[in-house]
C-alpha cells in the first residue's frame, strides 16, 4: 500500500500556522497513557510483594464522591481552541477512545455552551409553559420530580460533529472527529405529560423551547415530536444533571440534533408556526453546493466510528489477536448491524454488537481478528433498522458538497501503521 501526501489541502492558512507547534501530534497523543504509567517497578512484581499488599489504604468515606483512579487522570474532555472565539461559547469533546460499552460517564459528556455554564439554584428554578394552552402553568423542580417518570438511554449528538472533516481529514483522534456525541440514561417526564396538564389548543403545531442561561437559546420543536418521545429530563445515569449538561432540567429530543436538547430549560411556548430562531436559520441549516440550504434537518443519520484502534488509542502489540471496538448510533431507531473493513472499504465483515441495543442510543461493537502486523485501512459502517446504510464521505460529498458543516456522517478511515500508530486519513 502506498501513501500519497499530495491530496487536497483544504485548510485556511490561519490553521496552518499552528502546524509547527503541533508536529507529530498523533504520536504524542498516543503517549500520555503510557508516559503516566511509567516504567515497571520490579519491587511490585512477584516474587516481591508490593507496598499496597502490605499497608492500609484510605478508609471508607474518605472519598465521599468517588473519582477515577489517579492513574487515569489524563482522561478528560478536550477542546480545539482555534474553533471558537471564546471558551464560553464553544465545545469540548468526549474522549470516546477512553471509554467502553454504550454509556458515557457523566463527567465526560461533551459540552456545548453558548454563554458558559449557567449555575442555577434549584430552589429558584422555574419552568414556564404558556402560549396556545388552556391554562399557562409554572412548575418548580419539585413539581417536575413529582410527575410520573421514565428511564431511557439516548445518544445526544451535535449536528456539527465531524463538521471539521467535510473538506478532508483534519483532526487526529476520534475524540475530535466524533467526540460531540454522548449516550446516557435519562430520568425524566414525557413532555406530553406537561402539555396535557396545560391543555394544548387545537391550532397548536409548534413549541418554542428556551434555555435559562445567558444565551436564552431557543429552538422550535414540532408538536408531533413533543407528543412522541421528547422528555423533560433531570437525571443522567441516576445522578442529577451536571451543570454543564443543563442542571437542573434539560430537554431530551431522541434521535434529533443536540442543539434542540435545550439545557437549563426555563420556558416552553406553544404556537402555530415555527419561530425561525438564530439556531435554526443562521446556524443548524445545511448549506448545499448550489447555495441553497436545508432547514429543520433534525434527524441524525446513522453513523459509526472505530474508537480503538484510533489515533489516540494505538495498538501496543506487534501483531496477533486484536480487538477492534467502536460505537454506532442512528436517529431513526435501533442499530441493526455494523460492518467493518480492514482494507479501506473493499471487503466487509459484520461486527459483533455487544451489550444492550436501545432505540436511538449508542450501540457498542467489536471485531476480533488476528493482525498480521501489516498496514490496515480500518473503517466501520452502521446500518439501522430502517435499512439506512452509513455512506462513504465521497458519497456524502456528492449529494451535499462540502459547505454543509452539519450532519457529516460519512465513513471514517483510520490508517493503522506497522508500528501500531494510527492516523486519520481519506482513501480513494
Amino acid at each position: 500500500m502506498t501513501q500519497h501526501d499530495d491530496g487536497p489541502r483544504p485548510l485556511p492558512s490561519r490553521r496552518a500556522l499552528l502546524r509547527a507547534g503541533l508536529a507529530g501530534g498523533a504520536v504524542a497523543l498516543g503517549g500520555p497513557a503510557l508516559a503516566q504509567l511509567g516504567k515497571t517497578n520490579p519491587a511490585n512484581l512477584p516474587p516481591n510483594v508490593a507496598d499496597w499488599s502490605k499497608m492500609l489504604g484510605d478508609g471508607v468515606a474518605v472519598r465521599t464522591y468517588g473519582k477515577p483512579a489517579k492513574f487515569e487522570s489524563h482522561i478528560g474532555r478536550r477542546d480545539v481552541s482555534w474553533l471558537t472565539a471564546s471558551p464560553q461559547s464553544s465545545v469540548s469533546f468526549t474522549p470516546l477512545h477512553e471509554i467502553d460499552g454504550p454509556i458515557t460517564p457523566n463527567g465526560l459528556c461533551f459540552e456545548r455552551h453558548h454563554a458558559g455554564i449557567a449555575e442555577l439554584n434549584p430552589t429558584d428554578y422555574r419552568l414556564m409553559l404558556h402560549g396556545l394552552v388552556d391554562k399557562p402553568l409554572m412548575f418548580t423542580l419539585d413539581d417536575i420530580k413529582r410527575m410520573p417518570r421514565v428511564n431511557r438511554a439516548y445518544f445526544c449528538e451535535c449536528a456539527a460533529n465531524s463538521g471539521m472533516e467535510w473538506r478532508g481529514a483534519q483532526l487526529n483522534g476520534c475524540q475530535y472527529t466524533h467526540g460531540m456525541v454522548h449516550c446516557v440514561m435519562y430520568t425524566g417526564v414525557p413532555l406530553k405529560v406537561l402539555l396535557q396538564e396545560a391543555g394544548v389548543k387545537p391550532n397548536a403545531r409548534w413549541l418554542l423551547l428556551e434555555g435559562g442561561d445567558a444565551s436564552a437559546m431557543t429552538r422550535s420543536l414540532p408538536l408531533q415530536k413533543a407528543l412522541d418521545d421528547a422528555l423533560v429530563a433531570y437525571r443522567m445515569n441516576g445522578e442529577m444533571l451536571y451543570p454543564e449538561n443543563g442542571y437542573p432540567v434539560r430537554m431530551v429530543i431522541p434521535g434529533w440534533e443536540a442543539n434542540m436538547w435545550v439545557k437549563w430549560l426555563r420556558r416552553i411556548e406553544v404556537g402555530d408556526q415555527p419561530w425561525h430562531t438564530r439556531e435554526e436559520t443562521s446556524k443548524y441549516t445545511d448549506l448545499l453546493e448550489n447555495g441553497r440550504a436545508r432547514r429543520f434537518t433534525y434527524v441524525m443519520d446513522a453513523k459509526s466510528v472505530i474508537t480503538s484502534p484510533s489515533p489516540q488509542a494505538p495498538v501496543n502489540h506487534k501483531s496477533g489477536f486484536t480487538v477492534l471496538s467502536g460505537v454506532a448510533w442512528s436517529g431513526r431507531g435501533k442499530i441493526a448491524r455494523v460492518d467493518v473493513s480492514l482494507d479501506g472499504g473493499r471487503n466487509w465483515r459484520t461486527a459483533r454488537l455487544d451489550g444492550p441495543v436501545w432505540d436511538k442510543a449508542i450501540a457498542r461493537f467489536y471485531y476480533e481478528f488476528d493482525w498480521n502486523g501489516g498496514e490496515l485501512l480500518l473503517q466501520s459502517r452502521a446500518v439501522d433498522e430502517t435499512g439506512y446504510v452509513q455512506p462513504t464521505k465521497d458519497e456524502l460529498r456528492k449529494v451535499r458538497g462540502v459547505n454543509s458543516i452539519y450532519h457529516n456522517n460519512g465513513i471514517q478511515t483510520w490508517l493503522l501503521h506497522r508500528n501500531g500508530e494510527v492516523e486519520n486519513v481519506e482513501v480513494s
Partner: protein
Amino acid sequence: MSRSLKFALTGLALAALAGAGATIVGAPDVAPAQERAAAPVKKLGIGREATTQEIAGWDIDIRPDGHGLPPGKGTVKQGEDIYMTQCAACHGEFGESAGRWPIVSGGSGSLATHDPVKSVGSYWPYASTLMDYIRRSMPFGNAQSLSNDELYAVTAYVLYLNDIIRDESFELSAQTFKSVRLPNEPNFYDDDRETAEKAFWRKEPCMSNCLPGRAAVTGRARVLDVTPEPGKGPKVE
C-alpha cells in the same frame, strides 16, 4: 420531518396519548413493570397558573410575522452609537468581525462558492431572527440589558450595515418592521433527505470487492496537523 407533516392529527394524537398511557397514578404494580407508558389518564393537578406579569417578563421571542415585537422604536443613526460601544469590538466596525467572532455583514453572492460567508444580509432568512437574537443573547456577557428602543435602533443599524436598510434616518418599529425583508429567504427549504438521499437506504450493502483496486490514501490529517496537544484541555480533578 418537515412543516408539511400532517398536523391535522393533533387532536387525535392528544386523544391517543390519553388512551395509551394506561397507567393510573397510585394503581398497584401488577403487570411486568418494564417501560410502561408514563402518561396518566387524568390531569395530575401539578403546577400552578403562571401570571400575566410572570409571562411578560420571560416571553421575549419574536417571530417572522411580527408576533412578539415589543413596543418601541429606534433609528439607524441612534443604533450606530450603540453598535460602536457595545458590538463593534467583536463584530467589527463594519460588521466584518474581529478574529473568530461571528461576522454580521458582507458575503453577498458567496453562498455557492467554496468560501461561503453567512452574514445577516447574505444568509439569514428573516430580520425577526436578528432582533430576537439580540434581545435574548446580546451583548455577549451582558444579555437582556438593552431597552426596547435600543434594541430597535441597533437592529436597524445592523440591517443598515447589510444594505437592507439604506436610509440613515429610517426608524425601525413594530409598524415599519413588516417592510423589512432579507434577500436570502427563498433559498431555504425543508429537510428532504429521505427523498433526496433515498439511495442511502440499501437492501443489501456490498460485502466484497465493493470498490476497484486497492485503496490509496488521498489525504492525511497528520500532514495538516491542527490536532490540539495533550494537556492543553481542562484537567480532570
